[in-house]
């Protein structure tokens, strides 16, 4: 690999700054899984059709398999590992998905959690349709989605409850 094809990239991942040397054609998914060894982000299809590799880039769900690592230069990236730290769950959707029984094989779960995050945090009560739309880019072959949608609704309620408390205090 020639030097001109590699470049240092620095970005923030789950709140920590990182700097790595990546090839121009390395995807964000490859950098996350192979360089940073954060394996919670899954590779399902590697062409943007299944959503298993979803991460938050500048707060928005994107497909890391269709994002060049270089595009993340200077950005904030959050992976599933950023939603829990040392046993503490930083987002209500994590607990909600577990409690609702929204995982079976679990391979799609991290992608689903990150795809659902914006709608959970939308600040208003959501419908089942809105919950389904939020994860309409994520395939799950096991659960039939029903309990995943239950979990998103529950997490949205939990989010609203904690955030209205904060507003009141």
């Amino acid at each position, binding site marked *: 690999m020639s030097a001109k094809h590699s470049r240092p990239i620095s970005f923030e991942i789950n709140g920590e700054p990182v700097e790595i040397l990546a090839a121009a054609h390395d995807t964000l998914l490859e950098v996350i899984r192979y360089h940073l060894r954060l394996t919670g982000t899954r590779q399902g299809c590697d*062409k943007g059709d299944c959503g298993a590799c979803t991460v938050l880039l500048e707060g928005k769900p994107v497909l890391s398999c269709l994002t060049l690592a270089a595009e993340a230069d200077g950005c904030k990236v959050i992976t599933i590992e950023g939603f829990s730290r040392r046993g503490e769950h930083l987002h209500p959707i994590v607990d909600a998905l577990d409690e609702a029984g929204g995982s079976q094989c679990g391979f799609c779960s991290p992608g689903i959690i990150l795809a659902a995050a914006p709608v959970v945090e939308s600040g208003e009560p959501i419908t089942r349709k809105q919950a389904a739309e939020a994860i309409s880019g994520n395939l799950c072959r096991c659960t039939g989605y029903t309990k995943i949608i239950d979990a998103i609704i529950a997490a949205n309620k939990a989010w609203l409850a904690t955030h209205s408390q904060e507003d009141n205090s």
Partner: protein
Amino acid sequence: MENFEYFAPDSLDALPGLLSRKRERTMVLAGGTDLLDMLKERIVKPEKVINLKGIAGLKGIQHGEGVRIGALTTIAEIAADAGLKREYTVLAQAARSIATPQLRNMGTLGGNLCQRPRCWYFRGREYVCLKKGGSKCFAPEGLNKYNAIIGGGPSFIVHPSDSAPALQALQATVHTFGPQGEDSIPMDEFFELPIDNLRAENVLEPNEIITAVSIPKPAPGTRSAYIKFREKQSLDFAISSVAAVLEMEGSRVRDLRIVLGGVAPIPWRSQVAEDELRGKKLSDETIRRAAEAAVSEAQPLSQNRYKITLTRNLVARTLRQLAAQG
């Protein structure tokens, strides 16, 4: 994917030096959703990839006398814009129908207009089809249920964009930048049929990019809608779609534009359908005639005759929906 040299310029001035006149030697990256897919399949093997995201002034939606949308504006931003929803409904609805939430966060307006065909013979590495420099289009003798029913030949791809039919119906203009500087192209002239251009779907030169799209302010009494039909709601391209913009004067249609998506190699403006309604009242009968006219030019392949029925019904449905808004 094979490796390439990566550039992320911060101004348009750097582009002429980077872009190549040779197709696919240098490729531009906006949302990346289509480009990375093709790079991974090794359908394209560029030497350089130019990321446009860092270039100032290519993003955002500016409302004024009409609206101007930067080419790097994401589809999600277009779908969420209140002004677009109100006055340019057809575009907001089209944007909302595109792909999935993740892809809408990534994909850009410029990218959506320039995306390449989804035809599986074009996407498959095994096939050197007409559009990839080969000698034949495989669709007529192969599996063609999603291919063109109008305007096909010698290639039978369909244009996959949802935003394009909407923008064309809104009489938008595409603004470009190239070695000769800036240029503007009306949407009606932006796309090219395979019979005129086999290797690309539009008139852009390999060293030109889209910088923005502008849409004139709709006349008073304008109603618009986009109806897209797909086999499933979660991630799917249009089998057939209808973008319709009607300028009403009382109960009469003063002027209108009907553009079909998913049925032809380019967004297909159906002037024959428009002619059936221009100056007339919207009635079951005029709508039926317009819908019939919309598919009068159709010539199906072996497995896509259903797209004629479907498109006829979608045109009628779109017009009925707009009639009901009166």
